[in-house]
């Protein structure tokens, strides 16, 4: 069983937010109004934060894209009372909207702020992949949510792409990647199998210096950053 992970090369990242937009397009995530954005009610599965340090004229700004970290030891999975958040065998932390009761405990427990609550009934809008939700008897999450408000959402590493790609026998990480990886203009994001020693992601992690966010939380997350 593969263990999917992501490497983000901060040396290449320009902070263009293409990943944020690509994620919104791929996963049918609504664009919030400026007011919603200001009140922190807009849904983001992927965000790019800007962190400054130093004083003028010696200032440094780091741009850190932050998807869900898909932790090995995910606090959100531990605290979810309804098993709505669970860890797949390949390490992807999933969110099942049909099970989620909207208690928001996972949002409190997540050390990365990766989770968003759906605050309002979203207007139906044109969408390039209007896949209908599966029938009621089909269990499990579906990739392109017909949204209901009142549930918590988060990044899924585009599990639908991976599953489809595996079914078609494609090479994950080269031919099939999550939307944010595909759309990154500077190719700062690399997706692949952390357990495969021949994958590009393993090669990068063995040859470059890397770090993970908030190591002190011991979440053993699977999104790695290469130093600038």
């Amino acid at each position, binding site marked *: 069983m593969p263990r999917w992970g992501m490497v983000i090369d901060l040396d290449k990242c320009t902070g263009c937010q293409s990943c944020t937009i690509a994620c919104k397009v791929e996963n049918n995530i609504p664009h919030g109004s400026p007011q919603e954005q200001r009140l922190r009610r807009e849904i983001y599965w992927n965000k790019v934060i800007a962190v400054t340090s130093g004083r003028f004229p010696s200032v440094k700004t780091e741009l850190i894209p932050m998807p869900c970290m898909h932790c090995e030891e995910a606090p959100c999975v531990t605290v979810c009372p309804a098993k709505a958040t669970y860890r797949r065998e390949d390490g992807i932390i999933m969110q099942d909207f049909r099970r989620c009761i909207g208690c928001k405990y996972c949002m409190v427990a997540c*050390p990365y702020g990766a989770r968003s609550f759906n605050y309002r009934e979203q207007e139906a809008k044109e969408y390039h992949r209007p896949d209908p939700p599966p029938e009621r008897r089909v269990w499990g999450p579906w990739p392109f949510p017909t949204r209901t408000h009142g549930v918590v959402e988060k990044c899924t590493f585009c599990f639908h792409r991976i599953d489809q790609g595996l079914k078609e026998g494609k090479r994950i990480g080269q031919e099939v990647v999550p939307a944010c990886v595909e759309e990154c203009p500077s190719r700062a994001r690399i997706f692949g199998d952390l357990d495969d020693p021949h994958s590009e992601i393993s090669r990068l992690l063995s040859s470059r210096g890397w770090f993970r966010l908030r190591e002190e939380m011991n979440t053993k997350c699977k999104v790695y950053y290469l130093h600038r």
Partner: protein
Amino acid sequence: MSSPFTSIKGRSKGFRILTAILIGLTLAGFVSFIVSYTWGHYVFGTSNSVPWGMPIVITIYLIGLSAGSLILSSLTYVFKREEYRPISRVALFLAIVLIFGAMVGIALDLGRPEKSWRLFMFFVLNNMRSMFAINGILYGGYFLIGIVYFGAILAEKYKFIKRMGIVAVLWAALVHMGTGAIFGFIDARPIYFSPIKPFEFLAAAMVSGLALLIIVVVALFKFTKIELNKSLIFPLSRLLLVLVMILSMIVLIDKLTHLYSLDRASLLWLLTGHYAWVFWGLQVGLAYFLPILLLSHPRSKNTLRGVVIASFSVGIGIFGERFGLVIPGVAYPMPFYPGKIEGIWGAEASFPLTPIETLLSLGIFSLMGLFFLLGLKYLELIPIENQEGQRTESG
């Protein structure tokens, strides 16, 4: 909780007016719940930075009052303090009503309240590693135990009552420690994360429950015109003083530990940021400082007025303590990366109180008030001396 007694014992007009007001507020709360359910939670003040709002604050406040009230109602049945018999039934009934209100509060806070049954599918659909699911067992069991205990008292089965009372007291302590663990076990939020949180919650429950009980007792005796035996109140007020001191010590230790640790930014923000008034004004001022002053000052500690003011102060102050935990605990931005995080991701969140959320909160309190009134009218709760007059007058 004092006003119901006026109406009941005095003019039945007052009782009807109060009932009408409570029904109106409950309906307003229900309407605002429907609004929040159909439109979404953006009608509340919550956001992705402050996911928990007033319903959760109210819920943990009510659970505290309930657990404290139940523990104190057992003074008669478990600890054989006969002088508290007149208040024991009211205290227990209050405990049941309060836990019911708390469960309503949790359900209304859920994004999908129609799925709240999932919280009670223990070991089947629940993840039993979640403190929330464990607390589901605690709350549900507490509610059932309370009702059985209350039924036994109404049926006057004394041997059973004592055994049930011991179970109920221990369970009540567990309920509140479990509630503390919901917050205390979350290491992502430094203000929440503390092994002492369950004990802090237990102490706060005892304090607020006792304060509520003192208010109810004084009101009960005032409005039923039974002469208040002062030896009933002053042991309670001395106990309140001791408990407030214990609680403030626990909080002091908790905050000092967090201050001593290098990961102190969020606590410093709590003590000096824009929620500092909640901590210093409500929590420290009203819940600890003023009651300790009033209950230990030689001039006020032996007056009924001093004790009642101290109790009200505690009641408001502990609400502030709950608010000061739930909201600022998550409002401080998390340090994703060393340095200053720009924009909304590094901004301290605020929690505006919206009309819908306020109405919903009032609705929860009114619903409980309504149940309490109904209980006073239809159950034998108030001391027997004046009961006949009560019933005919409130009619």
